[in-house]
């Protein structure tokens, strides 16, 4: 057990910090060209896809180095590594694990160089938490699948170039009838309609598929293996959601709010209940960070992320909404005004649901880890 980083790892951390100090302009100084230039610089360092194998165009780095890189970037609120969030976080890893050589060559370079953008088509109107009952059909005709059905809550579908999709290729077998397809969003027969989120943003969509023809070469994994592909992808999604650095920063912001606030005519920080609530958040965030590091150790020993990612996903849900509620409570009547905290306090109600609701995480933990009977 050693929570210290090695001298080499610390040297790498210093390199990242130095790079950020030299290359990351302050938010207000970032012009329209910034994103492209920034991604170019990161690509040169091979920091995008940093832990992917070198033969796939990645940086060949270890998971610890990747952790350090992400941590340092989050500390200074650098933009994400590469512009294609979903593509890099789970489509790429799924391609590396399940893709053919031809698919890897076709998709990975574009991903690494931010030339593409992926969205994720799992949820359907009648099949959300119960994802495995999904109905969007794909029927093989010659060397093409013909896809018919509807996806919903598809984040970024209105500007994505590709969709990472789950379809049903067989109706008898619940899990064994699911297949993963990679479909260009400009395929004839795809129609995207916006849905406005609670905060009034257009971030997710409904996507309709009407006789969309998809070459068989765009299938990821074998027919009927889509569930396996997606379990790995969901674990990656949940472990990404669960990175603690972001929460550490939010905690500092919350403390700042508390320092400036008054409650019942006295400084809020003289109120024990405020202090203890913040202290409980702090301990929970420490636990989240350390849980992540312990899970990382298991990955280093060759076990890909799995059910344990539900632990931190649940913790994040226990933190985000109450932390923002406290921030609002500290603002008193000011919390009726729209500001950074009040807006975020609304946004996080969506984050908690995306990637699987808290109840679903509790089901996963109780059924797959504690082995209680399925409901």
């Amino acid at each position, binding site marked *: 057990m050693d929570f210290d980083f090695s001298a080499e790892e610390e040297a790498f951390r210093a390199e990242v910090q130095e790079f950020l100090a030299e290359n990351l302009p302050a938010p207000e100084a970032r012009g329209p060209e910034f994103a492209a230039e920034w991604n170019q610089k990161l690509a040169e360092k091979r920091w995008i896809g940093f832990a992917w194998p070198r033969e796939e165009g990645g940086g060949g780095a270890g998971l610890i180095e990747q952790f350090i890189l992400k941590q340092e970037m989050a500390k200074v609120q650098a933009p994400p590594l590469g512009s294609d969030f979903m593509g890099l976080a789970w489509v790429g890893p799924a391609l590396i694990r399940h893709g053919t050589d031809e698919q890897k060559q076709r998709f990975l370079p574009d991903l690494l160089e931010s030339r593409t953008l992926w969205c994720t088509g799992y949820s359907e109107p009648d099949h959300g938490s119960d994802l495995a009952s999904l109905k969007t059909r794909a029927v093989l005709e010659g060397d093409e699948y013909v896809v018919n059905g509807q996806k919903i809550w598809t984040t970024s579908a209105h500007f994505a170039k590709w969709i990472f999709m789950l379809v049903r290729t067989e109706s008898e077998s619940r899990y064994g009838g699911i297949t993963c397809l990679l479909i260009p969003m400009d395929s004839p027969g795809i129609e995207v309609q916006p849905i406005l989120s609670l905060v009034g943003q257009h971030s997710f969509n409904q996507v309709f598929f009407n006789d969309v023809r998809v070459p068989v070469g765009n299938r990821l994994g074998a027919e009927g293996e889509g569930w396996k592909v997606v379990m790995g992808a969901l674990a990656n999604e949940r472990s990404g959601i669960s990175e603690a650095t972001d929460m550490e920063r939010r905690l500092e912001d919350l403390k700042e709010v508390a320092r400036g606030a008054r409650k019942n005519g006295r400084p809020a920080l003289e109120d*024990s209940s405020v202090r203890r609530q913040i202290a409980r958040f702090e301990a929970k965030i420490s636990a989240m960070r350390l849980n992540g590091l312990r899970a990382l150790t298991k990955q280093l020993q060759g076990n890909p992320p799995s059910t344990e990612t539900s*632990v931190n996903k649940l913790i994040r849900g226990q933190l985000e909404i109450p932390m923002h509620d406290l921030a609002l409570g500290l603002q008193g009547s000011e919390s009726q005004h729209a500001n950074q905290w009040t807006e975020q306090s609304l946004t996080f109600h969506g984050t908690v649901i995306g990637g699987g609701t808290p109840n679903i995480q509790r089901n996963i933990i109780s059924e797959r880890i504690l082995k209680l009977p399925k409901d």
Partner: protein
Amino acid sequence: MNFGFSEEQELQRAEVRKYLDEQCPMAVVRGISESVEGYSAEQWKQLGELGWLGLIVPEEYGGAGLGWIDLVAMLEETGRSLFPSPLISNTLAAAALIESGNAEQRRRWLPGLADGTCIGTLALVEGSDDPTVRGIGLRAEPDADGFVLSGEKRFVADAGSADLFIVAFRTGDAEEDCALAVVEADASGVSTNAVASIDETKRTGTLVLDGVQVERAAVLGEAGSGAATIERLVDLGAIAVSAEIVGAADGALELTVQYAKDRVQFGSPIGRYQGVKHPLAEAYVDIVSTKSLLYYAAWAVDKHPEQIASAAAQVKGFATDAFTQLGVTGIQLHGAVGYTQEYDIQLYLRRSKWARPMFGDEDFHFDRVATMGGI
């Protein structure tokens, strides 16, 4: 960097587990807890021979010379078994000597604490509301040979079985004017009164000092400079108790999960119902998190003493919250059998109530987390 236990450490843990399963199953625990002594002298001797009493005692003083990370792994197992013994008390007495005893004092007392021929414990406070130096009121009268102590120490764990007490006393008016001294149970003027414990697997009592002569050679460190050591011992105590909490919580969870698999109502095991399985999933998340905080705290003791205080406060606060909740959940999910003497789950509820104020309750520790966190 590596956040897992080594193979050797896993083996050591398995050996402790095997010993407890064979020598101290719950029927034996219950038998011992009904005895006057509250521990088995025979088992104590065996633990001494196995090297587990002096796990953290340096080899030159007859110990195993291991670290706190090894210690907490062992205490997790003793906690899981509700093992009735003065193990934590004895270890903390040894820690006091290791922290601030001189070579002569270590030679004199450590080998006995390590081999089981002498049982040690801490006698720090008199009041029930403050585990810090502020809770020390016992005044020492200086005399030609050292000090004379008259007064009472309350809440002394394992007072009845101890041969040696590490007694805290006041040498001046300032808060930090404190010292620690070794007082042997057979010295003239020393007696103890047993107090009935809410958890009979844990013993507590009052130490009565009536004109007890403390020679200078028995005072640890410089007289009047004991405050830092006392604070350190409170932190170490909080970490050790948290380790037993994690183990006991794991034990209570295991019992309750098993019960939920076996008990059938409405035609199905109750563990299928979410009102039952979800609180168990939450308990699991809390236990995973407490373990993370615990291993970090133990590692801080071994490698980064400057982080002990904050790590100890986080883990004891978090562990106390978690175990308190699990005590409630465990009984409730057992139904009426949970309220019987016969079922073991009640023993864990008792343990949770015993552990809560040990070396500071959740309010005490979260207040510290807040202060150390800069608010």
